């Protein structure tokens, strides 16, 4: 499995996203330009210029026409995927950390960081069919969790919103009323900041990664803890294979320590675990900084990783990957 090394960003990667068909890969980094690539050969197609800060997150609509990006420049921007033109900009008074399209792409859930005395929020915006009709009104604003909310995603049928962040608790909210429906158990749940959250394609279960050196698999409806994958490093990124019962978990020692120790100590591998048996399958080395972003191609035959080192590595699995027996 020879990876395709994609050098397009000048700063650490923050997020990776495939479109539904799996032919496009969108990447966000701390430089200000989200980039779109051919997911097959890693060719760069184009960039989305307009942000004036690190871009933390993005999502692409079901039909691959609209892109939404959230940035530290306190804005969330809506783009035309094909032309790269900016369609609209939602402005906030604090950095936007995460964005996620609802099923049907009519709503988008956005989280904003606590900043200059403003608490962190989860906000829902309505996306107009015609960009000319777009308004910046929030359909719903949720406040409450302490600290940064690193990720908020839609539950099944857009009925719920699932959020996770610095306070290490996973919460399920009613997306109509903003009511808190469920909270993860403090004992069995994560002990430190939850850095990432990845929903399975059918939204039945999701995986969270945390600085407490573990990743956990949860049932979306009941918030039951299903599995725990114990690591020996802080987890920054997680992804679930849509094809096989595998999960991939990435991370590494904190960036502040990287220069002080050997490269081998950093543990910058992407680790594959068996989703059900929780056993380690293997690791993919290559990055020379912590892994910040991971994504599976929707066909499950390739995945990509983005690192603090500024590279995206695109891996197409070898045939023997599909015949791994545990």
């Amino acid at each position, binding site marked *: 499995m020879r990876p395709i090394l994609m050098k397009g960003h000048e700063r650490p990667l923050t997020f990776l996203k495939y479109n539904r068909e*799996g032919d496009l890969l969108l990447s966000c980094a701390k430089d200000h330009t989200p980039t779109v690539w051919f997911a097959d050969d890693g060719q760069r197609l184009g960039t989305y210029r307009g942000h004036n800060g690190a871009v933390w997150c993005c999502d692409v609509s079901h039909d691959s026409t609209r892109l939404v990006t959230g940035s530290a420049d306190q804005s969330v921007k809506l783009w035309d995927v094909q032309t790269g033109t900016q369609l609209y900009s939602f402005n906030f008074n604090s950095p936007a950390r995460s964005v996620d399209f609802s*099923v049907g792409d009519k709503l988008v859930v956005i989280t904003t960081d606590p900043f200059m005395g403003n608490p962190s929020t989860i906000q829902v915006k309505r996306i107009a069919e015609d960009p000319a009709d777009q308004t910046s009104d929030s359909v719903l604003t949720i406040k409450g969790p302490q600290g940064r909310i690193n990720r908020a995603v839609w539950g099944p049928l857009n009925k719920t919103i699932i959020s996770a962040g610095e306070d290490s608790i996973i919460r399920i909210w009613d997306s109509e009323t903003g009511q808190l429906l469920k909270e993860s158990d403090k004992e069995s749940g994560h002990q430190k900041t939850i850095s990432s959250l990845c929903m399975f*394609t*059918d939204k039945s279960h999701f995986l969270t990664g945390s600085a407490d050196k573990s990743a956990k698999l949860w049932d979306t409806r009941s918030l039951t803890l299903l599995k725990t994958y114990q690591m020996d490093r802080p987890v920054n990124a997680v992804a679930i294979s849509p094809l096989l019962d595998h999960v991939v978990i990435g991370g590494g020692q904190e960036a502040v320590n990287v220069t002080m120790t050997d490269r081998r100590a950093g543990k910058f591998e992407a680790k594959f675990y068996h989703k059900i048996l929780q056993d380690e399958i293997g690791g993919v080395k290559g990055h020379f900084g912590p892994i910040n972003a991971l994504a599976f191609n*929707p*066909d499950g035959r390739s995945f990509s990783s983005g690192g603090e080192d500024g590279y995206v590595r695109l891996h197409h699995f070898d045939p023997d990957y599909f015949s791994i027996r545990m």
Partner: protein
Amino acid sequence: MAAAALSMPEIENKAMNLGIDLSTIDFDNIVLPPGDDFGINSDDEDILHEEEAPEFETGYGNVIVVDNLPVVSPEKFAKLEGVIRKIYGQTGVIKEGGLWMPVNPDTNMTLGYCFIEFNTAQEAKEAKEKTDGYKLDKSHIFVVDMFDDIDRYMNVPDEWTPAEIKPYEAGDHLQHWLTDEKARDQFVIRAGTVTEIFWNDARQVRPDPVYQRQYWTDSFVQWSPLGTYLATVHRQGAAVWGGKSTFNRIHRFPHNQVKHIDFSPGERFLVTYSSQEPSNPRDTHRVVLNIFDLGTGKLMRDFKGSVDDFTTGGSGGLSGISWPIFKWGGGKEDKYFARIGKNAIYVYETETFILVDKKSYKVDNVVDFSWSPTDSILALFVPELGGGNQPARVSLVQMPGKVELRQKNLFSVSDCKMYWHSNGEYLAVKVDRYTKTKKSTYTGFELFRIKERDIPIEVLELDNKNDKIIAFAWEPKGHRFAVIHGDGPRPDVSFYSMKTGGITARVSKLTTLKAKQANALYWSPAGRFIVLAGLKGFNGQLEFYNVDDLETMATGEHFMCTDIEWDPTGRYVATAVTSVHEMENGFHIWSFNGKLLYRIPKDHFFQFQWRPRPPSLLSPEKEEEISRNLRKYSKKYEAEDQDVSLALSEQDRKKRRALQEEWETWTARWKQYHEEERELRLQLRDGEASDDEGSQEQYEAKEVEAEEVLDVHEEIVD
């Protein structure tokens, strides 16, 4: 409520009989007459009595009473006071107004005693020690007491009452761990605030917990040399623990602020050490050493003094002490212990706890000594004196009697280091000598054969005698030794044997391994196998080497490894990364031939220690017989191994099946939800037929050529 207490229904019955309505009584308001508990013990009564009564600070700990002073008239009062101030001003700082000499109001004469209050209790104690028995003149010999003691002595009853003899209680089986059916070994680890003891269950490839306890020790834990006890160290002193099923406290050894502990090799005694900062920064640290009997917990002897008294070579200061201060000699009977002083070695007998022959053993300028691990033989090193006029010397001295068995003079020596073989058969002295220019040093070895007649000495120099010696280690239970030598990042490792060349054995080299990433040697306690380890700068390279066959069995790596320890049987090796740095903390267990068995990561990992085993009780003949018929014995264990691995894989299969089944129930439920919600999802997507199972559809890459007219420009060509 203890035995006398009634149960609740009984109480209710009783109340009914007496015609009392219990609900009208406010239990909180019932007060027992003071001093009477009506025979009802409180819940914590046992603990209350078990714990020693707390020591109260009476506030007079820094006051001493000096008796036997001259009785003087008021005219001479000031003069006497001056004399006393002068004497006691030397030992400590007398508090302002802290000297009081009472006067008989009738005669105006002094009463012949005075009270002196010092700044600290420690100074008071020192003053008492130093001036008790001080001769002011013939008829006035000071008797000095602590003020607090007077009270205590007053309360001693005049009549002797026979001590109460406690009925005999059978002790716990302290060596029960040796009777483990699977012959496993134990180890203790300390991580965070928790101290845990495990069996090393190599068959199941995991540790099997025995006992764990939080905040068990204030600083570290230590097994006794034969593994009988585990010692913990606290602010108030040390404690030893042991027992059959759990770890019970066997003894406590009070010693305030204890810093170091040391067991005698035969487990008869425990030495504890503390040093205290003086109130006056110009003074040296005060050192207290206690020697306890491990069996009874009794204090056998204490040593007090300033740090300087216990440092060698007069270097003084804080770093001057090298632990252990007392070195034990005389084999497993713990017959002697000795410490080095200025121009003398102090050898004590454990029979009486006094100096052998009641005096120290004078050796001018001695700087180092060590005991033979098996015999009462001392090896001494005296460095060169008088600018090379008097050669340096190493001598072997038999105790008792102080008979010099052998002596070797050495010239232009810069340093010497002694390495005893664990059987006491050989002594290797590593000698660093100056080259002729005196600018650099080179190294040689003097090898003593202790057990042979007249103790022959052989001189060994390495092939390249300018090589720096990085490590040296004798093979336990054998006749070989290993040396790491060389400069630069890849030193060489050489093996030598003491038993080559017919009747008159000679030392000779077996082999040299070139350019190894190693800086430490770890022989198996059974000999034959050795781990060449590259700690610290070498990032934890490990090489498992078989010295019989002179071949490498395996190489491995435990990244950042800081500590390596063989288990007492020589079957397993533990490598650990302790909390010297934050990363990678935890330990690995390897088999003797370098197969990694299991890894346990632990944050804030401080300590790993195998539980030692006492020496085998089998006679050498019996041992040899067993090793000859090993095949017969091993069959049984191989069969057991097989059973275990079968059971394990069976267990594993079952577990996996259970996990898989559990998962299937989940997925079934999810599928159902997914089906039910299909319609609704379709609505959300405005009836778009393509459902969200995008992965089923294959996309098609099409190349589309788009032409766009950017600009039209007309130019007239001439």
